C-alpha cells in the first residue's frame, strides 16, 4: 500500500469554518415551520406505583395541543425498546416502553408528554399535570439490590438479579497454589454522567398521507434509529429517514434509540405536525444513560519476583432501572482484563443487578476503561507488595512482540504490538529515573510526588461481522460508496457519522490519496439514512478501522475501473497502463495521459466504454476485517499531593500511543487530548451521587464537576506506529484510548505519592477530602 503525502498529513478540518462562525447545524438550529414543542413529564420518584395521572388542568392551559400518558400510547408501540445480547445471552430483563405505565423505576423516567405551541407553553402546562405516586422502597446500591429485603423492581423478572455468569480459562486453583503473593482488593468504578455539551435533541416530522417519517436527532446511530423506529412504530423501513446533523458530542450516551425519539415520532403521527424536543441539562443528567457504576473485586496470585499467575475477578454491574440497549456491553471488560500481560489462569464472574437509578450503558471506552483500570491497578498492587518497580513488573509480564499475534486466555487474538516501544519512549520523555530520585528527595521534605503508569492494550474497531454478531447480537462492518461525478469530483458516502471526530476531513484524505485528486475534490456524506445502503454508525473507536478502510477499498475499486477505461481509451493493454497522481498512461509515456476527470467524463459517455462495461464510476464496499484492532500505549502521570489539603495537582502528563497508521495526526492528538481529559475527570472529579431515596444529588453542572481549563495540564504526546495487519490502511482506533489509559495512570500516581502513608488504593474520584483522610487514617503519621 502506498502511503502518500495525504496519509499522515495534519490537514485542517473542513468542518470548522461553519462551526467557528456559529453557522453549525445542530438539531435545535434547523429551521422548522409550524413546529409543535414536546415537554416530557418525568418521574420525580425513584420507585413508585403510578396511582393516577390527572391531565385535566394541564389540558386547559394555553397553547396545549395534546397530552399523552403511557396508557394513551400503548397501542402505538408495536415493540419495546431494543436490548442487544452484548456478551450476556443468559440475562433476564423486562421490556421497556417509552413511557412508564404502572410503575416508575428511576427519577427522570418519562411518564407523559405535553405537546404545545411553544417550549414555554408546554412546560407551563406540564406543571399543572398531576401524577399521583405511591412510594415503594428504592434500591440504590449494587450489593443491596440482591439482598433479602430489597424491593423488587420488575415483578416479571422475579428478583433484581439480571445475570450471574462466569467466564474462565486456565487452572485457577493451580495458579493460587503456586502463588507466593496473594492480594485481595476491591476497586470502585463510580457512576459517571457522560455530559455531551449538546444534550439530546429530536425533530420528528410524520406526513400522514405519504406515511413517511423523517427524524432529525442528535445521535451517534442514525441507521439503528431508523430501523428501530420502523419496527417499533410499524412503519415500513423505506418510509423512515433519520438524519444526524451536527452532533454536539456523544461519548456513548447517544448510541441508543431513546424514548424521546419514539415519542416525538408518535406525537407527530398523532398530530400531523412536526414535533420538536430539546433536552434540558437537568433532564440530560437523569434521562440520558450513565456510565460505569461497577464494583470490581479482585484476588491476585503472583510470584515474589512480580510474575502474574492468576486473577479471580468479580465484576458487579449496576444496570440501573432497566437493561439498556447495550447495557451489558461493559461485561467486555471481564473478557479483556488480561491486558498486554501473560497470565496462567483467569476466573471471571459478572453479576448484573437492577437498581432505581438511571440505566447505565456504554460511556467512552465501555468495558475497556474498567478492564484497564483493573489490570493496571493489579500491576501496581503487585509492585507495591513485592517491592519490585512497577516498570519492571510490566516488562516482566508483557506479551512479547515475537509472540504476536497472541491469543489471550479467553481466546481473543491481538493483531500486533510491541508494548515495550511505547513504554521506553514514555519513560525517556518523562525522565523516569530522574523523577524517582526527585521523589525520594521530596519525600524527605514532606512533599508527595507520585508517578503513575498505565501500559494499556485495548480492543476496538467493532468489528469483524461474525464475532460481533455472536457476542453482541449485531453484525458489524464498515461501509462506503465512492462515486465519481461527471467532472471528476468524488463523493464518498460513509456508514459512520462524526460528532467531533473530523470524518469529513480524514475520510477525504483517504479517498483523495487513492484517486490522486486534490483533497478538496472529495465530498464526504454521512449521517443521513436516505443516501447510503446502510451503516453501522459510530461508537467503539470503529470509524477509521472500518468505514475509512471501506472508503479506501471503494476508492481503489474505482481507480481500478478508471484504469480499465483509460486502457480502452489509450488502446493499450490494461497491464501496460499505470495510474499515478490522478492520471492514467501507458508505462513510460506519461505525456499521453488521461486524467481522472477525463476518465470520469468518459464513464458517463457510455459509448466510449469498453464493450459490456457498465456506465458510471462508483463502487460500494462492505468491509469485514479478519480481526479487531488493538491499539496500545504507555501513559505516565506525575502528580503532587498537597500534604495539608489532600489536593492533587497533575504536574506532567506524558502519553505515547500506537494506533497504527495515523491518517491525520492533528486529529488523532485531538482525540487523545479529549480522551485523557475525560479519564482524568473520572479519576479526580466526576461522580453521580444518589441519596437513599434514589434522588440524584449531582443533577446539575453545579454539583457534577466537569473539568474546566484550569483543572487540567497541557499534555505531552508522542507516537509509535505499528500498522495493523488486519486492514489495508493499517489503522487502529483512537477515540477512546485516552480515556482508557488516563484514569489508572492518575490513580496509580496518587497511590504512589501516598506510599509513605501505607496507602494501597484510593476510591475515585480522588477528591482532596478522600486523599486527606487516607493520609490521616493512621493519626496523620508521616514517615
Amino acid at each position, binding site marked *: 500500500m502506498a502511503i502518500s503525502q495525504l496519509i499522515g498529513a495534519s490537514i*485542517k478540518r473542513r468542518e470548522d469554518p461553519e462551526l467557528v462562525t456559529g*453557522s453549525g447545524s*445542530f438539531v435545535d438550529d434547523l429551521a422548522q415551520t409550524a413546529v409543535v414543542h414536546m415537554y416530557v413529564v418525568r418521574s420525580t420518584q425513584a420507585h413508585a406505583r403510578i396511582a393516577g395521572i390527572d391531565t385535566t388542568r394541564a389540558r386547559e392551559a394555553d397553547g396545549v395541543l395534546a397530552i399523552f400518558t403511557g396508557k394513551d400510547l400503548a397501542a402505538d408501540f408495536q415493540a419495546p425498546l431494543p436490548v442487544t445480547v452484548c456478551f450476556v445471552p443468559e440475562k433476564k430483563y423486562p421490556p421497556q416502553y417509552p413511557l412508564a405505565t404502572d410503575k416508575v423505576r428511576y427519577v427522570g423516567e418519562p411518564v407523559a408528554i405535553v405537546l404545545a405551541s411553544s417550549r*414555554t407553553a408546554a412546560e407551563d402546562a406540564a406543571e399543572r399535570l398531576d401524577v399521583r405516586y405511591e412510594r415503594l422502597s428504592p434500591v440504590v446500591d449494587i450489593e443491596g439490590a440482591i439482598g433479602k429485603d430489597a424491593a423488587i423492581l420488575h415483578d416479571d423478572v422475579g428478583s433484581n438479579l439480571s445475570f450471574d455468569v462466569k467466564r474462565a480459562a486456565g487452572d485457577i486453583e493451580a495458579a493460587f497454589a503456586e502463588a507466593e503473593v496473594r492480594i485481595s482488593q476491591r476497586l470502585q468504578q463510580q457512576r459517571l454522567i457522560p455530559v455531551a*455539551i*449538546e444534550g439530546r435533541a429530536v425533530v420528528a416530522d410524520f406526513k400522514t398521507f405519504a406515511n413517511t417519517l423523517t427524524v432529525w436527532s442528535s445521535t451517534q446511530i442514525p441507521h439503528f434509529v431508523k430501523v428501530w423506529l420502523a419496527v417499533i412504530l410499524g412503519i415500513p423501513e423505506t418510509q423512515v429517514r433519520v438524519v444526524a446533523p451536527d452532533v*454536539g458530542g456523544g461519548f456513548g450516551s447517544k448510541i441508543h434509540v431513546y424514548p424521546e425519539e419514539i415519542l416525538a415520532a408518535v406525537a407527530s403521527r398523532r398530530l400531523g405536525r412536526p414535533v420538536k424536543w430539546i433536552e434540558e441539562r437537568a433532564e440530560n443528567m437523569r434521562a440520558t444513560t450513565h456510565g460505569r457504576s461497577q464494583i470490581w473485586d479482585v484476588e491476585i496470585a503472583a510470584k515474589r519476583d512480580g510474575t502474574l499467575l492468576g486473577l479471580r475477578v468479580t465484576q458487579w454491574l449496576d444496570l440501573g432501572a432497566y437493561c439498556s440497549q447495550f447495557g451489558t456491553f461493559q461485561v467486555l471488560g471481564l473478557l479483556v482484563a488480561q491486558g498486554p500481560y501473560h497470565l496462567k489462569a483467569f476466573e471471571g464472574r459478572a453479576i448484573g443487578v437492577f437498581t432505581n437509578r438511571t440505566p447505565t450503558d456504554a460511556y467512552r471506552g465501555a468495558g475497556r476503561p474498567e478492564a484497564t483500570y483493573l489490570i493496571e491497578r493489579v500491576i501496581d498492587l503487585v509492585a507495591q507488595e513485592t517491592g519490585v518497580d512497577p516498570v519492571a513488573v510490566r516488562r516482566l509480564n508483557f506479551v512479547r512482540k515475537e509472540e504476536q499475534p497472541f491469543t489471550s486466555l479467553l481466546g481473543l487474538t491481538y493483531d500486533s504490538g510491541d508494548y515495550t516501544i511505547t513504554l521506553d519512549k514514555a519513560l525517556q520523555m518523562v525522565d523516569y529515573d530522574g523523577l524517582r530520585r526527585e521523589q525520594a528527595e521530596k519525600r524527605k521534605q514532606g512533599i508527595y510526588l507520585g508517578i503513575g503508569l498505565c501500559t494499556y492494550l485495548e480492543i476496538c474497531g467493532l468489528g469483524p461481522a461474525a464475532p460481533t454478531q455472536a457476542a453482541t447480537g449485531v453484525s458489524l462492518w464498515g461501509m462506503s460508496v465512492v462515486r465519481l461525478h461527471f467532472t471528476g469530483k468524488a463523493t464518498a458516502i460513509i456508514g459512520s457519522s462524526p460528532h*467531533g471526530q473530523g470524518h469529513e476531513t480524514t475520510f477525504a484524505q483517504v479517498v483523495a490519496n487513492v484517486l490522486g485528486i486534490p483533497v478538496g475534490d472529495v465530498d464526504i456524506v454521512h449521517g443521513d439514512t436516505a443516501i447510503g445502503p446502510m451503516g453501522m454508525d459510530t461508537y467503539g473507536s470503529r470509524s477509521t478501522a472500518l468505514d475509512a478502510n471501506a472508503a479506501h477499498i471503494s476508492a481503489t475499486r474505482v481507480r481500478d475501473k478508471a484504469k480499465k477505461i483509460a486502457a480502452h481509451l489509450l488502446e493499450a493493454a490494461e497491464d501496460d497502463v499505470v495510474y499515478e497522481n490522478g492520471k492514467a498512461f501507458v508505462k513510460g509515456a506519461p505525456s499521453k495521459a488521461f486524467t481522472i476527470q477525463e476518465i470520469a467524463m468518459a464513464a458517463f459517455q457510455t459509448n466510449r466504454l469498453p464493450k459490456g462495461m457498465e456506465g458510471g464510476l462508483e463502487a460500494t464496499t462492505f468491509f469485514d476485517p479478519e480481526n479487531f484492532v488493538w491499539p496500545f500505549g504507555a501513559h505516565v502521570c506525575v502528580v503532587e499531593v498537597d500534604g495539608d489539603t489532600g489536593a492533587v495537582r497533575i504536574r506532567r502528563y506524558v502519553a505515547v500511543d500506537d494506533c497504527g497508521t495515523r491518517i491525520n495526526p492533528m486529529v488523532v492528538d485531538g482525540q487523545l487530548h479529549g480522551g485523557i481529559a475525560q479519564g482524568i475527570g473520572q479519576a479526580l472529579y466526576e461522580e453521580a451521587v444518589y441519596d437513599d431515596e434514589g434522588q440524584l444529588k449531582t443533577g446539575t453542572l453545579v454539583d457534577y464537576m466537569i473539568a*474546566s481549563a*484550569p483543572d487540567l495540564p497541557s499534555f505531552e504526546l508522542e507516537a509509535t506506529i505499528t500498522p495493523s495487519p488486519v486492514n489495508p490502511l493499517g489503522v487502529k482506533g483512537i477515540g477512546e484510548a485516552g480515556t482508557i489509559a488516563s484514569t489508572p495512570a492518575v490513580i496509580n500516581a496518587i497511590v504512589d505519592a501516598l506510599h509513605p502513608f501505607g496507602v494501597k488504593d484510593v476510591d475515585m474520584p480522588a477528591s482532596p477530602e478522600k486523599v486527606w483522610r487516607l493520609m490521616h487514617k493512621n493519626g496523620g503519621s508521616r514517615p
Partner: protein
Amino acid sequence: MRQKVAITVNGTRFEHEVEPRLLLVYYLREYAGLTGTHVGCDTSNCGACTVDLDGHSVKACTLLAVQADGAQVTTIEGLAKGTELHPLQQAFWDEHGLQCGYCTPGMIMAARQLLQRNANPTEAEIRSGLEGNLCRCTGYHNIVKAVQAAAKTMGAAADRESPAAVRAGGH
C-alpha cells in the same frame, strides 16, 4: 404581559415585544434568528451561550432579554467580516481548537473578552480566563494553543496599527 425591547445585535437594531421571562439566549436564537449562541446547561456553568453585552462577556442564559433592552450585543455571528475570519476563529481552526463545535462559539466569545483584558496572557491566565466555559471534547489543550496563537496575530496586527492598541488589547 409582554414588554417592548430594543436590542442591537451585531450592529442591527431589533425591536420586539417579549415575555418578561424570556432569556437573552432565546431572544438571540428565536427572535434575532442567530443560532450560533448555544444552550448547554440550565445553570450558567457551561458558557456555551457566552456573548458580549456592552463590552462585557455575559452568559446569555443568565440574563433576561428585557435586561438587555437598549444594549449592544455581539454574538459569534458578529466576529467574521464576510468570509474573513476573526483571528480567534482562524486560530481555533488552525490549532484544532474544536471537535464537535458546540461549545466553540461561547469559548471564542469568552476568549475574545479575555484578550481584550489581557493581550498577552500566560497559559495559566488563559486557563483561568476560560474557567467559565466547558468543553467535553478537546481537553482544552488546543483551545489554549488557539488563544495563544490568536494573541500573537492580534498583537502583531495591533502593533502594525498603533502601539497604543497593544496596551489596550483591542481588536
